[in-house]
């Protein structure tokens, strides 16, 4: 899976209220949520982000609420991938469940700045900063998570299980 776009870099502990404030949670339509994506950190983000763009976070990206609306808003905004040093555990799980590729890679977080062009091979965990030529290896995705991705998300995975 080849992903490519411009990087948008944020700091540590980007929480779910920053990603999608609760006042917008009276809907779960990804297109509606996308209009307010990252509003708490950068109110202009939703208007500037382009399809394929990549979010770079620091430590504990996605901490806070269990709301799946957070990865849905990011996916709805056209973001192709999130790379962070670490992810909060519920966000990590939710992102896989809805099919938003995410990678843990401290070196890439150091080596990518906002505006850099970034290419990602999510399955192989390879990240390249096209603006600087630097290459990074993300932590491998656990085999079980890869099964979920291969099935097309958790619901497809469960469908197969139920069908058996």
């Amino acid at each position, binding site marked *: 899976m080849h992903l490519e776009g411009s990087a948008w870099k944020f700091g540590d502990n980007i929480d779910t209220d920053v990603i999608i404030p*609760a*006042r917008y*949670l009276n809907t779960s339509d990804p297109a509606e949520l996308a209009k307010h994506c990252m509003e*708490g950190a950068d*109110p202009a983000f939703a208007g500037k982000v382009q399809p394929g763009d990549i979010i770079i976070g620091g430590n504990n990206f996605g901490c806070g*609420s269990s709301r799946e609306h957070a990865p849905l808003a990011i996916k709805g905004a056209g973001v192709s991938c999130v790379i962070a040093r670490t992810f909060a555990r519920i966000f990590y799980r939710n992102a896989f*469940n809805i099919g938003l590729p995410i990678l843990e890679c401290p070196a890439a977080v150091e080596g990518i700045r906002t505006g850099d062009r970034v290419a990602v091979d999510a399955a192989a965990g390879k990240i390249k900063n096209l603006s600087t030529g630097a290459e990074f290896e993300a932590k491998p995705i656990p085999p079980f998570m890869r099964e979920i991705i291969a099935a097309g998300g958790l*619901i497809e995975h469960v469908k197969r*299980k139920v069908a058996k």
Partner: protein
Amino acid sequence: MGMTITEKILARAAGRDRVAPGELISARVDAVLGNDITAPLAIREFEKIGVERVFDKDRVYLVPDHFTPNKDIKSAEQAKEMREFARRQGLTYYFEVGRMGIEHCLLPEQGLVGPGDVIIGADSHTCTYGALGAFATGVGSTDLAAAMALGETWFKVPESVKFVYEGELPEWVGGKDLILYTIGDIGVEGALYQAMEFTGPAIANLSMDGRFTMANMAIEAGAKNGIIAPDIRTLEYVQGRTIRPFELFASDPDAVYARTITYDVSKIEPQVAFPHSPDNTRPVTEAGRVEIDQVVIGSCTNGRMEDLRLAARVLERRRVHAGVRLIVIPGTQEIYRQAMEEGLLAIFIQAGAAVSTPTCGPCLGGHMGVLARGERAVATTNRNFVGRMGHPESEVYLTNPAVAAASAVLGRIAHPGEVV
């Protein structure tokens, strides 16, 4: 080699003798939970799976508590979607407005969660039930959907961190202060992917309400679950209350922990978490002069009887400061009724507070107490992220209910001793 209480509960649910941290396991769940924000999404995903019925109509709990009584048309549509699903599936435990409560206050109170249970909820504060010696953790809507269909889910077994609380609690210091102090010490990612196990003499002496508060905020340190081994106090709470038989687990003496952290609680003062992070804590005496516009006493963190009694003790025969709005929200209808019978509601109303039906509204800036630009609130809630209670340029300070009540009286962050 011994196992922790978390490992033992997960091993049993996975039908195994033992599990080790880092393992991926499939475990049956005793119950699953959704609310009016997370359930609609879960219901839509559930319907894609192609099963007719939920795995057990007695084990899927739905509680409309976030935007209810509905704040607008869209939230009414969401609540309706959940209500109709509950009817269609014949769910036993759907709680309508007027009979409901804030989910994490309601489920323990109604005996719907018990020691040894494995529970997932599409709400991050599901970890509250760890106070009963259950393994309880928050998940998203898709995980909830899958578990509603299968009655099982997968977990990565977490490592455990042991927190030992020694000594006696000073006056005005309770569960909220212990957990804020702990999060302040280890940070909001201090227990990322881990289980927080709370032990020690101060925990043994802590009320159930105080224990719920501590387990509730484990997620604010990034933990997968918070847990307290059941003891006499737990048994007194659950006996005659739980709807299902329960099983008691405790960590083995030789259980392996990622680390052990010990605190002397006698040195801990009431804590304040400053904006915009629950780990930005300091003792209330070092808060300086912080003038405030609003105080909220309630939420799944501190909306229980003990919390209301503490607030009433501070507010009795006193008035809320002219420049402050005080909102008091009992966690459940039952707490509301009991507070009425004990005369607490009269104290709040005479002090000049607004008393509300149970709702999560203000905690997440949903409704019933949203802040304007530049406003400051003291709240007994669990998060003070940017924009959490309203405008991105508003501020939330987290405290225990006594500090919140004292702050309401003085119009600034205050120690309860300044008022009582």
